[in-house]
């Protein structure tokens, strides 16, 4: 589990990133420190990587869900009022 951002110890690093990427992050998170925005994006990306690992582990142990299971779940997920 990743610790939440905020009160964590910081390490200053020097990174070289693609300029269009930096421009877009600045535009999307305008007014905030670039480090804060990139920190949050990296937390989110790592969380999704960990989720993928968990799904893979669960499917190795118990198999992939059937199409019917996806149907049941998505019907509830997108249920209308």
């Amino acid at each position, binding site marked *: 589990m990743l610790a939440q951002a905020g009160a964590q110890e910081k390490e200053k690093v020097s990174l070289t990133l693609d300029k269009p990427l930096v421009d877009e992050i600045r535009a999307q998170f305008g007014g905030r420190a670039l480090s804060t925005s990139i920190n949050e994006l990296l937390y989110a990306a790592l969380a999704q990587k960990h989720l993928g690992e*968990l799904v893979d582990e669960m499917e190795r142990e118990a198999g*992939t*869900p059937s199409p019917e299971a996806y149907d049941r*779940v998505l019907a*509830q997920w997108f249920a209308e009022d």
Partner: protein
Amino acid sequence: MVLDSEGLWAIARNDSEDARAVLASSREAGVPVLVPAVVLAETLFGDNRDARANQALKKLQVVPVSESVARVAAELKRLADMSGVAGTVDALVVAISAAAGGGVVLTADADDIGKLAGAVSDVRIRPVRV
């Protein structure tokens, strides 16, 4: 996507095909899976019976309950006419889902979660039953 107590156990035990389908769908859609810290207090035993849950929790995002989330939960509980500790935890689960922008709560108690979700006005939250 937010897990309540039964949602977390379904993932920890890995005995629910529907829970695997929800997690896989979340992965495909890039939806974060959140576990409110209060759910850990409700769910865990604090001993070696927690081994499977702890294994799953290493890969999930545990989120703290802030004062503002707690206040929203209190209001949801009132609006849904619910009370008691179980109702409080369910309300916190729904309040965290609302703070995250809505989505899905994986639960065995779709009725209560649905009732609380119905009290949320600005985002859409749906219970998915395990």
